[in-house]
């Protein structure tokens, strides 16, 4: 019984943390702060995954997202030395007025989603059934082996693309010779 | 086989002309002349086969190779008297256009002769294809090179004119394609067999509103090509901007494909729809006769004026076709041939004048009879032929069309006869502004000495003059050949 009560608190706490972190993440001027908030939100998301019985997914979320992707972001932020210098820019680029339209749109979208969920559409399933990692593994290498291959291809192409695009330019070249270099 | 021979020799000649054209322009000219000659030899043998007395059937079937068997599409080439006469006209005007292009076309000759001969081949194909699909293929083969001729070798506004010509014809032939497919489907439903051949399709029952819509699809395509009234305004632009050989081809032959289409496809395939639609079409014919004649009177660009006269004459043709009796049909055939010769002559004269005076504007010409008596006399003859003087081919055509139409619709014939009054108004304007009147001296004439016709040009025009006078006094040369085919079409057209 305690476990149910505890489960309840942890679930809703992590939801609140996620939402709050995301809101803060969007509104930060400083890129690094935003990144940190993103890490928090993904960690709390991992907790929710766990609570929903998807332990494997939670682990993945922590390892891949919080670990690899965010670190990549931090690298890029550092390379673009986006620290304090550009914080002022950010302030300029973010007038208060700018928030109105997107938030209105987001609010409409959210309300629609909620209506969609709570309207008596037949497609609404109930009940929660946890899924063990074993079943995921069996399915993964059973009927869905193709998805795995596809994911590997995707990663490979992302790797090559990133490598090619971000290749270190010879420093003496100005920007307009970039085209010749690419064609060369 | 001769018919295929004609088409192949023309196409081959075109390709060779292109290859040779790179080295020397005159070689490509002579080569295209040779290919035309070869085609004429084939045509001659074709003529004997068709007109020998003991020819069994009306048709002279040349080939019937299955092409896309699944849909019953055959390469079906056949000629009867009607297409024989029109192919003959095509070859004669081919010679005339070639002669007129001798000195006028001097850049990229190889490519020009390729297009020139391909258009001729396309037209010969159109006149002899009896498989609707093949007919459509030749219809496109004829159109594209003509577009190129106008677009590349035309005068100042050629781009606009060429695109306009292309869009008009292409859009309408799309309609025809849709109607064609519709017809074939209708036939398939009724008889269960896939066939594009003209012979089987004439048997399908096309009464009712579907038949009317299919007929309209064909009718609009041929009306654009004819050019009938509402869709005629590509012709004046195309003619003013086309080079002289292009104009001769366009006026002499391409307009006839529209008329031929009406004769061969609209009535025989859709007898009921065509007969219910006939009064409207005749009204359009009369309207285009009068409206085009009025417009011709107001132009001061010579080639534009002649273009409008062509529309007026072709108005008679559409009038004659939709009266659909023996008299008016024979008259239509003669009008087609007569107009082909006389408008080719007028355009050749316009070309010659442009070469000499570097202008097409009638207001800048004047008093040329003194400097160029031979050219003036010949243009007098062609202008007089255009206004339908008896003793020349146009009169026979016009007279019989009006006579035939009078049996069916007296009021339409009387109104169209008013065209006979407007005809001299615009024909004599050409003579008055161009050749009579006070000689405007040298300022209109660029070069000081304006040379009269040389032998090549005289030969070119003489061919047309002989044709006109010959058909003016002995039209039975054509009528005896086209009598049987016209009867056969009429029999079909009457829902036989």
């Amino acid at each position, binding site marked *: 019984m305690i476990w149910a009560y505890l489960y309840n608190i942890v679930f809703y706490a992590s939801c609140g943390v996620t939402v709050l972190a*995301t809101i803060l993440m969007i509104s930060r001027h400083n890129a690094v702060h935003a990144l940190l908030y993103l890490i928090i939100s993904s960690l709390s998301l991992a907790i929710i995954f766990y609570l929903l019985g998807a332990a494997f997914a939670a682990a993945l*979320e922590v390892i891949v997202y919080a670990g690899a992707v965010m670190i990549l972001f931090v690298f890029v932020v550092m390379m673009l030395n986006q620290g304090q210098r550009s914080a002022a820019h950010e302030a300029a*680029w973010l007038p208060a007025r700018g928030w109105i339209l997107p938030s209105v*749109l987001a609010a409409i979208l959210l309300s629609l989603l909620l209506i969609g969920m709570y309207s008596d559409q037949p497609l609404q399933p109930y009940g929660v059934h946890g899924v063990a990692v074993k079943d995921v593994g069996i399915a993964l290498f059973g009927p869905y082996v193709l998805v795995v291959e596809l994911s590997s291809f995707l990663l490979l192409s992302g790797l090559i693309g990133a490598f090619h695009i971000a290749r270190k330019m010879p420093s003496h070249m100005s920007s307009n010779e970039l085209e010749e270099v690419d064609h060369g | 086989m001769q018919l295929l021979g004609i088409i192949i020799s023309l196409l081959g000649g075109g390709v060779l002309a292109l290859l040779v054209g790179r080295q020397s322009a005159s070689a490509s000219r002579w080569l295209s002349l040779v290919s035309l000659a070869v085609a004429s030899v084939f045509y001659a043998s074709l003529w004997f086969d068709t007109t020998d007395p003991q020819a069994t059937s009306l048709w002279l079937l040349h080939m019937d190779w299955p092409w896309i068997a699944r849909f019953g599409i055959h390469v079906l080439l056949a000629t009867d008297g009607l297409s024989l006469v029109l192919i003959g006209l095509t070859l004669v005007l081919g010679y005339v256009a070639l002669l007129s292009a001798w000195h006028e076309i001097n850049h990229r000759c190889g490519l020009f002769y390729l297009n020139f001969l391909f258009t001729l081949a396309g037209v010969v194909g159109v006149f002899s294809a009896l498989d609707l699909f093949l007919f459509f293929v030749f219809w496109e083969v004829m159109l594209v090179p003509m577009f190129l001729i106008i677009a590349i070798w035309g005068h100042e506004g050629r781009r606009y004119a060429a695109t306009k010509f292309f869009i008009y014809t292409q859009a309408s032939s799309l309609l025809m394609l849709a109607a064609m497919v519709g017809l074939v489907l209708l036939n398939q439903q009724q008889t269960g067999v896939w066939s594009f051949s003209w012979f089987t399709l004439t048997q399908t029952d096309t009464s009712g509103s579907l038949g009317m819509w299919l007929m309209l699809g064909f009718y609009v395509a041929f009306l654009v090509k004819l050019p009938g009234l509402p869709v005629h305004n590509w012709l004046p632009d195309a003619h003013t901007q086309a080079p002289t050989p292009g104009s001769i081809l366009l006026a002499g032959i391409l307009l006839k494909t529209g008329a031929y289409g009406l004769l061969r496809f609209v009535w025989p395939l859709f007898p009921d729809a065509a007969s219910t639609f006939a009064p409207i079409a005749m009204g359009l014919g009369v309207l285009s006769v009068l409206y085009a004649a009025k417009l011709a009177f107001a132009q001061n660009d010579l080639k534009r004026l002649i273009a409008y006269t062509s529309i007026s004459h072709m108005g008679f043709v559409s009038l004659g076709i939709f009266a659909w009796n023996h008299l008016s049909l024979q008259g239509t055939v003669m009008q087609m041939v007569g107009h082909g010769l006389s408008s080719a002559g007028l355009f050749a004269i316009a070309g010659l004048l442009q070469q000499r005076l570097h202008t097409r504007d009638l207001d800048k010409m004047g008093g040329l009879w003194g400097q160029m008596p031979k050219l003036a006399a010949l243009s007098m003859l062609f202008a007089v032929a255009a206004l339908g003087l008896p003793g020349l081919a146009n009169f026979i055509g016009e007279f019989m069309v009006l006579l035939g139409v009078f049996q069916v619709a007296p009021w339409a014939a009387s109104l169209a006869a008013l065209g006979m009054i407007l005809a001299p108004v615009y024909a004599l304007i050409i003579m008055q502004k161009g050749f009579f009147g006070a000689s405007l001296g040298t300022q209109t004439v660029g070069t000081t000495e304006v040379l009269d016709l040389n032998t090549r040009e005289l030969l070119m025009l003489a061919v047309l003059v002989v044709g006109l006078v010959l058909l003016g006094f002995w039209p039975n040369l054509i009528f005896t050949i086209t009598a049987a085919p016209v009867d056969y079409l009429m029999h079909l057209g009457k829902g036989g």
Partner: protein
Amino acid sequence: MDSQYIDHAMVLAGILFCLGLVGVMVRRNLLFMMISIEVMLNAAGLAFIAAGSAWGQPEGQIMFLAVITLGAAEVAVGLGLTLLLFRHHNSVNVDQLNQLRG
């Protein structure tokens, strides 16, 4: 566990997705847009997981796996492009990329 958690998870996914969308639309800095897109991807992942656990089938997590790989690849290429943008315009303002105007 009864289904209210699934519903709330779904609600959370919706909220996160909208927030991400707002982030993308509002921020002019390409980096922030990239981050917001990551959030939207996470929201989608959450929805998959929630649905998977609702039905007790592994597909949810498999799809989540696909979402993650997609997100990773996308970030790799996106950040590469951001670097290029920065070198080219020495600023990360996305409005500078408007040469493809109609």
